[in-house]
């Protein structure tokens, strides 16, 4: 079986083709091959959420996805989400609420939070806590993060209603 494999995928809207070592997970691929260092690795076994990125529209653990398996996939990272402006209000709310301190968890946290904005516009504070329960933050104590997400949900609902 091959230990290197050719993959062509779309990352943040751009087509990329590479030969990848099969033991490379998506985050190492993004960081080392493509220089996209927004997504972080921490535990590398699926528990902390620092590596959360989107594959084919869904939030996933980048450390539990083989780069080799992504031929034809569409990947979005925090860099891409920032460029498109999709979560500009969320990022502003994280700043306003001091929801990012050391920042290690923040890119993954934002991708998870973007999922709530997309799929659960009426999420309660409890729903928000449940949804980000797989994203560890060692600094903020979570309260400010929940506040920030809650602020954005409310603001988006209001502008929707207006």
């Amino acid at each position: 079986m091959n230990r290197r494999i050719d993959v062509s995928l779309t990352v943040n809207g751009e087509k990329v083709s590479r030969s990848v070592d099969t033991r490379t997970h998506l985050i190492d691929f993004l960081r080392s091959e493509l220089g996209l260092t927004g997504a972080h690795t921490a535990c590398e076994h699926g528990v902390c959420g620092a590596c959360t990125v989107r594959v084919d529209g869904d939030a996933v653990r980048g450390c539990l996805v083989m780069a080799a398996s992504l031929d034809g996939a569409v990947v979005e990272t925090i860099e891409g989400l920032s460029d498109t402006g999709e979560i500009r209000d969320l990022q502003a709310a994280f700043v306003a609420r001091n929801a990012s301190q050391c920042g290690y968890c923040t890119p993954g946290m934002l991708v998870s939070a973007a999922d709530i904005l997309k799929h659960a516009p009426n999420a309660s504070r409890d729903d928000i806590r449940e949804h980000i329960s797989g994203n560890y933050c060692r600094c903020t104590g979570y309260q400010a993060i929940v506040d920030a997400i809650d602020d954005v949900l409310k603001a988006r609902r209001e502008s929707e209603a207006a």
Partner: protein
Amino acid sequence: MKWPAMGYARVDSLDGLWRALDAAGPEAQILAGGQSLLATLSFRLSEPSGLIDITRIASLKGIGVTEAALRIGALTRHADLARDPLVARHAPLLAQAAPLIAHPAIRNRGTIGGSLALADPAAELPACVVALGATIVLASRSGERRVAASDFFKGLFTTDLEPGEIVVAVEVPVATAASRQTIVEVTRRSGDYAMAGLAAVLSIQADGGVADCRLVFFGVGSGAEIAQAASAALIGQQLSDASIAAAKAALADDLDPPSDLHGGPELKRHLAGVLLARALRPFLARSEQAA
């Protein structure tokens, strides 16, 4: 830790899979969602010579319903179980179970076939399919084979799967008007594997009589544990506080929980009793619930 060096092959049909398995030899493993397998590689708990990615095999995907059964393809993700309207209607237990598994990003990749093949003793889906009386459909190069879920699980991380055989689908008898399905569990943190859990499927007649009952515990033994005595204590009875108490007492004969990192057998027995009442009380007639 980084993964060990290993080979990788992608197949897009079952025939392609049989060929790849032959070429790769016995040390190769099948990769579905990777949410357990790739994590064990990070711990270097396993070092397969290579992984054969089955996620592009179209015949393992999709959910469909016939008159008697809901057929769920092995590659159905936990996230799909949670939102599929056919699952919600015909096997509500699975729709309720899916959000209890891990976290959203893991549910977006983990598959039902992977969860059943792994047979983690604390996993939700093995207990659910046993409680539902489902059939596991297996395939190998010599054809298909169907196994009752209760015969499929053989113990700790052990199933009836033969080398070269895979799970292709699960078939669940569709829920009837009399059927009541629920899953409850206790975890230390949201998304963790359960310290103890219970998948319950009952058939309750209009007069409140229990026609059928399957109580299946997880996290309290070596796998999906059918509580025979507790289930028997309810069948043929009216569902009531008294019959629930009798079922709880009967649990002593059903469970023999080992100690694990959460605690000893006594803790698990206690939790099992609490869960039994928590699962069944909502099915009591309204008058009794208020009491």
